C-alpha cells in the first residue's frame, strides 16, 4: 500500500502525545523544523534549484564507496541561501539563545561569496564547526552559531536538490543507489554524511507469494542533511562497517516504545536512533522522529555512548 509520510508537525504532535515530558523542547523547535520542511518544498519548485545538476549515479563509482558529491563543486547558490535565510529567520530569531546575537549573521548570509559558500558547505558536510574558525573570526562571527545556521540553510537546499535530481522517492520506493544494492557504505551515498536515524521497513505484499506477507524489517539509513535513504546491513555498525555477532546492542526505553530504539556498537560505542515502522500506522517524518527520540539519547549519554551524527539536540555536555 502506498502510504504518505507524516509532516514534521504531525510527527512531533504524535510524539508529544506519547511523551509529554518532551513537549517543551519539541514545541520550541517545532516551528523552525516545520518551516524548514516548507522551505524545502518551495525550493523544489525554484528554477535555480532545477538548474543544479548533480552527478549521475555511476554504479562503478558507488560500488567503490565514492559518494556522489565527493568530487562535485557546487555552483553559486547565494540567491537560494539568501531566500532560505529570509524564510527561516523569524523561527531562528524565536530561539531564546539566539535572539540577541543573530543580527550580524543575517547580513552576512544574505550575500555569501562563492569561496565562502564552499567553506560553509564543507563544514556542513563534514559536520565540523571548527572548520569555520578562520572564516568566522574574519567576519567577527561565532563559528558555532555560523555552523548551526549554515546547516539549516544548506540542509533545506540540499534536500530539494537531491529530491529533484534523484527522486521522487517515498519510503516505499527505491532510490537509484538501492538498485542491486550497489551502495553498501554506512555514510550517505550523496553527501557522505553519517546517518541521523535508521528505520526498519514495513511488511509488504510479495506478488509472487499468494499466501504470505513479506516480513519487512529491512534496515535503511537516513541522512538528515540531504534527505537520502539507503539500505544497510541490519547487524553492521555504519562506522565500523563490520557485521559480527553481538556487535550491535539495542537499547529501548520501555514496553511502550512505539518501535523506537537505539542501536549501538559494542566496539566503537557509537549509537544510531532506529525506528521500526512495522510497529507504526503512519510513516513519520524521519528528521522529526530523530529529534523526538531525545529521551533515548539522554540514556545513551549516561552510558557514555556517542552519537553517530552530531545534531543540535544531541550535542549537549
Amino acid at each position, binding site marked *: *500500500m*502506498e*502510504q*504518505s509520510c507524516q509532516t514534521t508537525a504531525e510527527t512531533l504532535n*504524535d510524539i508529544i*502525545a*506519547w511523551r509529554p515530558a518532551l513537549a517543551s523542547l519539541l514545541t520550541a523547535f517545532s516551528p523552525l523544523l516545520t518551516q524548514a520542511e516548507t522551505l524545502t518544498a518551495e525550493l523544489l519548485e525554484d528554477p535555480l534549484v532545477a538548474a543544479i545538476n548533480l552527478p549521475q549515479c555511476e554504479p562503478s563509482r558507488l560500488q567503490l564507496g565514492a559518494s556522489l558529491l565527493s568530487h562535485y563543486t557546487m555552483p553559486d547558490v547565494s540567491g537560494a541561501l539568501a531566500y532560505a535565510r529570509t524564510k527561516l529567520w523569524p523561527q531562528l530569531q524565536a530561539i531564546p539563545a539566539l535572539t540577541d546575537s543573530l543580527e550580524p549573521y543575517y547580513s552576512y548570509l544574505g550575500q555569501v561569496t562563492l569561496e565562502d559558500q564552499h567553506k560553509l558547505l564543507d563544514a556542513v558536510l563534514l559536520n565540523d564547526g571548527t572548520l569555520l574558525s578562520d572564516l568566522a573570526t574574519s567576519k567577527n562571527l561565532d563559528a558555532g552559531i555560523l555552523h548551526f545556521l549554515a546547516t539549516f540553510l544548506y540542509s533545506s537546499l540540499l534536500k530539494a536538490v537531491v529530491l529533484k535530481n534523484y527522486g521522487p522517492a517515498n519510503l516505499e520506493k527505491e532510490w537509484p543507489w538501492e538498485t542491486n544494492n550497489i551502495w553498501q557504505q554506512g555514510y550517505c551515498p550523496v553527501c557522505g554524511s553519517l546517518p541521523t536515524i535508521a528505520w526498519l521497513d514495513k*511488511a509488504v*505484499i510479495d506478488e509472487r507469494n*499468494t*499466501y*504470505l*506477507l513479506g516480513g519487512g524489517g529491512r534496515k535503511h539509513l537516513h541522512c538528515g542533511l540531504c534527505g537520502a535513504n539507503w539500505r544497510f546491513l541490519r547487524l553492521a555498525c555504519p562506522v565500523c562497517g563490520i557485521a559480527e555477532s553481538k556487535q550491535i546492542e539495542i537499547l529501548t526505553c520501555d514496553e*511502550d516504545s*512505539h518501535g523506537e530504539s537505539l542501536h549501538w556498537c559494542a566496539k566503537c560505542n557509537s549509537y544510531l536512533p532506529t525506528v521500526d515502522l*512495522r*510497529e*507504526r*500506522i*503512519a510513516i513519520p517524518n524521519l528528521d522529526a522522529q530523530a529529534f523526538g527520540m531525545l529521551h533515548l539519547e539522554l540514556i545513551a549519554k549516561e552510558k557514555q555512548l556517542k552519537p553517530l551524527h552530531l545534531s543540535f539536540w544531541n550535542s549537549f555536555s
Partner: protein
Amino acid sequence: MPKSFLIDTTRCTACRGCQMACKDWHNLPAIETKQTGTHQNPPDLNPCNYKLVRFHEHKTADGRVMWNFFPDQCRHCIHPVCKDVADMAVPGAIIQDEATGAILCTEKSAQLSPEDAQAVIEACPYNIPRLDPVTKMLTKCDMCFDRVSNGLLPMCVKSCPTGTMLFGERSEILAEAKKRLAKIKKTFPKAFLADQRDVNVIFLLAEEKEHYYEYAAF
C-alpha cells in the same frame, strides 16, 4: 479523516491468528466450546471473542467446492445505527471517536435496560454487539482504540501473516482496496468491496455475500 481497515478475504487462510491476537490483547478468557461440524470455533461472536473467523463452503455450478473465510468484526460504521439507538436510551453508552472513527461501547452501556441493549444488538446490520452477562455492558471490537491512539496497529492487523488485513488513513485504504479489487476481478469477476461508502472496515469479497455469511454486507 478516520482510519479504515481493508480485509481482503482472497488472501485469508483462516489461520485465526487475528482472532487469537485480539483475545490476547484484550485479555479475554478462554471459553468452553464444542465441535459443531465446522472449523469455525467458537460458533459465534460472544463477550470473550470480539473477532471471529467464519467459515462457509458451497459447491459451484461446475461441482467445485469453494471454502470461504470471513474474519468478522465490528465495521465501525460511518453513521453507526447502534449509537443512534443507544443514545435514545442512555446517551454516551456508545460513542464515536472523531479522530479514528472507532465506535466504542462505554461503561454507560451497562445502564441500558435488557430491552434497550437487545434493541441496540438488533439494530446492527452486521450482527456484531453482544451483551456481557457479567458486566451487563455491550461488547464488541474497539478497533484496539488504545493502540491506535498511540500510533500502533490494531492487534489483528499486526498479527496477520498473509497481508489480508491493512489499516491506515481511510483515503489510502480506499485507494488500495480499489487497486486490489481491480486485480482480483480478473480471477473472480463477481468480486466487490462490501459497503465501502458506509463502513470503516471494508471487506473485499470474491463472491456474493451469501457465500460468506448472512450479515457480511447489507
